């Protein structure tokens, strides 16, 4: 078992931060709502990664338990999100999020 030589907490935090920021960047860049959902998943996943890393650091199961919950959330969230995307496409015939700007001012 190679766990003794595993990289430090810092490396894990770093990776999670990078992934999170990448997800955030994608979220802001993409106009395609499907891509935005993917980026949300990246962010959520980064947070989940953080839990697991921290859990490993402290050696208790809480991290992985939280991971399970996060994944649950991600699943439920994506289900609703996709339903909304379907409705959106159904009504607007586009996946361009910029078309969704009726509410403003």
């Amino acid at each position, binding site marked *: 078992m190679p766990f003794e030589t595993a990289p430090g907490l810092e490396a894990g935090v770093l990776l999670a931060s990078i992934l999170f920021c990448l997800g*955030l960047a994608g*979220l*802001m*860049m993409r*106009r395609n709502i499907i891509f935005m959902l993917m980026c949300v998943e990246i962010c959520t996943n980064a947070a989940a990664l953080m839990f697991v890393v921290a859990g490993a650091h402290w050696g208790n199961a809480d991290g992985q338990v939280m991971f399970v919950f996060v994944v649950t959330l991600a699943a439920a969230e994506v289900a609703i999100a996709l339903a909304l995307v379907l409705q959106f496409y159904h009504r607007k015939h586009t996946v361009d*999020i*910029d078309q*969704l*700007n*009726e*509410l*403003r*001012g």
Partner: protein
Amino acid sequence: MQGLLAWVPLLPLIGFLLLVAIPLFYSKEPSEKFVTAIGVGSVGISALLTAIVATTVFWQNPGEVVNIALWQWMLVDNLELGFNFHVDWLTLVMLMIITGVGFLIHLYSAGYMREDPDFRRYFAYLNLFVCAMLILVMADNLVLLYLGWEGVGLCSYLLIGFWYKNPANGAAAQKAFIVTRIGDTAMAIGLFLLFFEFSTLNIPQLISAADSSGANSQIITVATLLLLGGAVGKSAQLPLQTWLPDAMAGPTPVSALIHAATMVTAGVYLIARMHPLYMLSETAMTAVAVVGALTLLLAGFSAIAQSDIKRVLAYSTISQIGYMFLALGVGAWSGAIFHLMTHAFFKALLFLSAGSVILSLHHEQNIFTMGGLYRRIPFTFICFAIGCACLAALPFTSGFYSKDQILLRAWEFHDGFNSLWLAGILGALVTGIYSFRVLFLVFAGSEGSSSSHCKDANNTVMRVPLAILATLALFGGMLAPPLQSVFGTQTWEHPAAWVEGVAIAMPLIGLVIAWGLSRQQQKTGEKRSPIMQFWFSGWGFDWLYENLLAKPFRNLARLNHKDIIDSIYKGTAAFSQQLNSLLSSSQNGQIRWYLATFAAGSILFLALLVAL
């Protein structure tokens, strides 16, 4: 008997109230007779009461002082003011002038104003005026005096603007009130200063306090100068004289009563009343004298240049009051009051006769359109001539006695030849010129354009007062009031004979010049040389004030009529709206922008953390 004095001011007040209250209860306008009965009657009874008291109380005992306490007015902390009257000989003289001359003018008015639709209003104002004037002279404290002081100012305002439909009258009235108000404000500040210094405003207390204590002479000087400011305003002296010529817009009897006989002399009365204070301050005395001397010359020259009969008289009034101020300034207290009295007689006479002329000429006032009227209205001519003679102080007229006293005193006060005396002498010459000039222009020479439709408008109601006044003007010089009880006995040695000679000669020289001048002017008509034009305009004071004070103030007010301070708040509101639209544009509905702001916000929060 003394209690009757309280009724003296009360009766005109009742008259006023009755005249004002009538329309509240009757929809119909009361008849002229009724109004006359109340309006003239009330003042008449007052005059009668005054006469009774004067003969029964004061004549017997010249030193008598009557105090009448009506009710407490204010008692706050140490400010104690009563609604109390204080009557001594000085007051009595004023009372007699006000009620006596006032009654005559009321009587005359009944004739003069007949057929005016606002007959009732006229007498209401007039009665209120008499009441206020009486309070002014009877007040035993300066605040009550101030009450009367402002009251007469108000009535003056109302009566100048009596014919309100002509905006010019209103403007004149407004000017009169505001210019005098400037003086009044100075006087009010003087009152504050006196109260600050002496903790009382009761005149006798004030005088005794000033006399006895080593009061701060500087404060007294300032206070007396401030009071002088009030007097100058009310008496139309330099530099606040400009309102009086314009005040001639009112009905002529009003000019006679208010702007010649009574109200305008209130300043003289005030200074005479407060003379112990003035005597404590050399500066104040000098100031009074200088103001008087300058005014009498200035106004005299202006009178020479006028073409409106009433304006001539107005300037002459200013000039004569200048004499009184000169008298006050040189300590001739009784002389000033004496001149005040004789002036009341002859100036009232002059104005009333001028009123007759005007009425006869159907409200024509330009002397250049008149001429040769002595044939058409002889009675008026005689009255006017008597008035002019008195005004010019021809020997043995009442004006002569009073003015002579003043000139002599001026000579003596400064030990001989001096500028004040010179001013007085010069003034006498000028007086002669302008008074006879107007007499000649109106009544002598060839008939002017308006003389042709002259119709004697005098009726009995008007003739009687004229006659009485003419008598008084001629022989009033014998009636020098016994004012020693008030001012103390003043004796002075007689100056050289030539001094008196000059004083007598001056009016006569003036008469001659006036003759020549009037002959010439009747030919040239209204054309005026530049210097005459300058005098005509009253030495440009109106122009000066208009451009130096009134216009800048009006412009400033107009500039700021939207209230500059409001723009601060309007600006704040506009700024908020700008912010609002700026922030609203951030709510652009673009979700990616929203995400970006979210990220930016997070960066901001983390930056706080990084910074620490």
